[in-house]
């Protein structure tokens, strides 16, 4: 176990561009679907079990050394909304830049060369975790923590929500985050035998619809 490397990778200040994204919280705040700590928690729980589970399994599989290009295609087939594919690749490109500077590796170089416009962020995250000497479970945790901490941080800014309340939301989600991380990692372990089709593909209609809507909104604080 390499705890310090995981802290570096999962730190909100890791320069991978995540601070410019709200994980769907901004459009949810705009229409009142997130209006307080309770609805933020519900939102994060929904995201954790859908987009979070998918991202964590992709990251864990990439960290285990499975073909990142096959995983990148699997991410495309699990992301029907064009705006979310664009966001995932943009974030992947930024994560790649940060990861290559932090933990240089031939695997990161190869993925960057094969996907110059950016691979899906969870795949890059997984390969970065691998380059940092981390395990698949670590990569799943990093993906899941970002899944919920992004919307929580953004909501503090968007709603002037008390940061103590937002952090308490994250703390309350910890047991579920543990369970989803275990599920994602267990599923990723089956990729060797069963291929990428075994990975989860959980969908979230409200995240999908509002992401596409948000992408065309002129006045927005966050890119997604």
């Amino acid at each position, binding site marked *: 176990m390499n705890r310090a490397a995981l802290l570096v990778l999962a730190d909100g200040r890791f320069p991978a561009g995540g601070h410019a994204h709200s994980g769907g919280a901004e459009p*949810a705040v705009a229409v009142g679907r997130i209006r307080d700590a309770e609805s933020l928690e519900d939102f*994060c729980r929904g995201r954790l079990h859908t987009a979070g589970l998918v991202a964590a399994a992709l990251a864990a599989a990439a960290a285990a050394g499975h073909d990142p290009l096959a995983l990148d295609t699997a991410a495309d*087939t699990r992301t029907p909304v*064009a705006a979310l*594919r664009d966001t995932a690749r943009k974030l992947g490109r930024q994560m790649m830049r940060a990861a290559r500077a932090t933990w240089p590796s031939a695997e990161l170089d190869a993925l960057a060369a094969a996907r110059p416009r950016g691979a899906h962020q969870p795949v890059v995250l997984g390969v970065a975790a691998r380059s940092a000497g981390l395990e698949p479970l670590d990569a799943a945790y990093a993906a899941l923590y970002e899944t919920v901490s992004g919307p929580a941080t953004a909501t503090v800014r968007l709603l002037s929500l008390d940061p103590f309340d937002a952090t308490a939301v994250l703390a309350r989600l910890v047991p579920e985050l543990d369970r989803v991380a275990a599920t994602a990692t267990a599923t990723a372990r089956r990729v060797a035998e069963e291929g990428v089709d075994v990975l989860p*593909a959980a969908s*979230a*209609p409200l995240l999908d*619809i509002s992401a596409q809507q948000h992408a065309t909104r002129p006045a927005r604080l966050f890119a997604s």
Partner: protein
Amino acid sequence: MTPDTAPAPPAGRSTGAVGVRATARVTAAARAGATVLPVLDGDGPFEFRRLRSRDTEARVCVVGAMSAPLGGDRLRIEATALQGASLHITSAAATLALRGPTTAHATYDVHLTVADHAEIRWLPKPLISAAGSNLRQAWTIDLAPTARLVLREEQVLGRMGEPPGHVATRLTVRRGGHVLLDQEAEYGPGAPGWDTPAVLGHHRATGQILLIEPDFDESPLEPQVLIETPDDAQAVLTPLAGPAALITAIAPDGFRLRRILNAAYATSADTSNRARQ
């Protein structure tokens, strides 16, 4: 989460302890500028009725699905359009998932195979997930590179004034052997996070229309969002990573769901007609 994808049960059915096992099959073939149906075998709760053909399209209605699936049932429909054939499938009534004699889940799987220059239009009535029901549905769709598809699926979570049952679906679409779309959804009691503001919120009806059209390679549809009011039905039309587009909609009820799906579908038809002109 993954629906039971055990090998298809044999033709015919038994009504043992697990409930009804049935596999209904329809095959469409092109003959002399029309589509004929060399296989049209109902089974269990599924019966097929031939409707009047429209142009080169053979049309079939699934009847009698009203009382199924019940807990423990293993139901499957296989539809195949052979090269150049055009098959349109509807249903006479909504499919009502009920609890049945056990709390065990039922499966209701649909497998569509579309050959080159063939088309399937699968446009049934909604699935209603009644209180206490537990259904797993797997859609597996295999298309040849020049095949076309229109697929609509709608889920209404609970009948009027009752809580929903549990429904889990997985939709896997392959085109030319490669996965084009892979999607799972799980709603109702026991499904984590399903009624949160990230997934369905207060909405109790959700549906999709999947459009696969080789022409979209050249002229993909533009993304579009339809919102009736912020708190009411909403839909997104989005191009997939491939010659396909997906309309995803949510609404408070089945009526408003169908209305916004139809509106989004009309938009897509306008857009693709303009692109072809």
